[in-house]
């Protein structure tokens, strides 16, 4: 399992194996990059943000008490970084110049499907992600963590430091809110 593997690598890193850190990055870089992109909606910013998150992880890793909780701890750190970066960019008017409405997710063509269908799907996906980006922070976060990152209720509870019951109710509200925003697409 991913978390067990991560715990082993954390232990190895603490014992001086620097390659273990590289492998940890390899395990989580896609997830964290996607998380970052969900906030900043810009590839270069997302890359830079992801790197900063892992730099913090590298520096703080010796202080992590329980290696088995690496994943939750990584997400907590990442969420804090994302929130801070998002607010800083917002203050600078970054999103105004970027125009979130028109920002496109890089087109990733699936094999065996027509270009036309891919473009149509991509447009729907862009609208969906654009609406997601406009949602209030707490709703956006919980949708990203659950439905884009695939975290369990328990992991979300730990990451956001909220009770399990609150996770469930907030998630339902967030999903209903997203539905109301884009029901016209269906």
């Amino acid at each position, binding site marked *: *399992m*991913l*978390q067990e*593997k991560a715990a082993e690598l954390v232990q190895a890193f603490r014992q001086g194996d*620097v*390659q273990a850190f*590289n*492998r940890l*990055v*390899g*395990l989580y*870089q*896609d*997830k*964290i*990059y*996607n998380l970052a*992109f969900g906030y900043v909606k810009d*590839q270069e910013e997302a*890359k830079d943000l*992801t*790197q*900063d998150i*892992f*730099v913090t992880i*590298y*520096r703080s890793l010796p202080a992590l008490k329980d290696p088995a909780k690496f994943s939750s701890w990584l997400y907590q750190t990442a969420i804090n970084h994302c929130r801070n970066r998002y607010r800083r960019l917002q203050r600078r008017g970054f999103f105004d110049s970027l125009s979130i409405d028109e920002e496109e*997710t*890089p087109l*990733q*063509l*699936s*094999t*065996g499907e027509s270009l036309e269908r891919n473009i149509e*799907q991509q447009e*729907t*996906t862009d609208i*969906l*992600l654009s609406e*997601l980006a406009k949602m209030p922070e707490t709703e956006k976060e919980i*949708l990203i963590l659950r*439905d*884009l990152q*695939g*975290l*369990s209720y328990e992991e979300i509870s730990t990451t956001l430091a909220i009770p399990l019951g609150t996770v*469930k*109710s907030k*998630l*339902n509200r967030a*999903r*209903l809110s*997203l*539905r109301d925003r*884009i*029901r016209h*697409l*269906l």
Partner: protein
Amino acid sequence: MDCRQIQTLFTAYTDQELDQRNLLLFEQHLRSCSHCFEELECFQKILLRLRMVEPLTAPSGLLPGIHEKLARRGIGYRLGLTFKKIFAPLSLTAGASAMTVAVTIAFFTHTSKSPESPAVINDSLARQETRAPSSPAAPVASMNIDPNPGRRFSDQLLLTPSAFSGRALEEDRSPHSLYKYWLHGDQNSSGNALSWHLKPGPADTSLLMPQWHRQQIGMPLMPDVTIRVHHLSHEGLENLHRHVQEAGNWQTRCYHHDFFLVLLNPGEIDALYSLLQQHRMPFSSLSFHDADRLAQKPLLVAVRL
């Protein structure tokens, strides 16, 4: 339950978190309230679209960039490490990975139906990193699925109406749903399935939701996990099917031209992934269940082109 209460349970219902009592009340309400039925359908369609968003692959140069930042800030130096020391072994690993990719590409080129996708290869390599081989145990769950579509099969453990009810599917756009094949079940007056059949699905996908008012219900085949093996020919799939049967001591059924089903015991999914890796097969897998659920329940897995 009134309509307002029903809406507060959409997530619990969709994530299969409702207890038996609330599940009955919930479904009872849906049978009699077309408004809530439509609202749930819309809710689930949007959720499915969200979950189908293709994840991005982290850009190249991410890791060197991290170490550059660390070096700039003096962190690597404090630990007595130099940039070169960190990356010397990494380059060997990267070289080995590149070789693996090259061999994989060469192996599949003659059967490939479409251009190579770097994301696919990355996915496969990532799995090599994350999944340790484990030995498959003897089967404890049972499955009786006839290999010919349209003929009767039954499985009370996995293929029950409640396991499928309420899941809206996006016809052929969902990689998770083998939309061409539908489960058809005869149910008794209390709504329990008596028997199930697998047969080609209808062209009319407006019937994707369970039709409670009918005695005959139907829904697309929706395995717990769908593994898509990339760049594989039909012959290759047939060979893989044989390997899976021989290597894993697993029950496989329902071999069709473009997919087969495997029944795994709890925790065996990693062993199946390892088998694909051993055969150098790039793949991606999709499941809406979380890791705990995957580890704790028997899984119906579809392996498809």
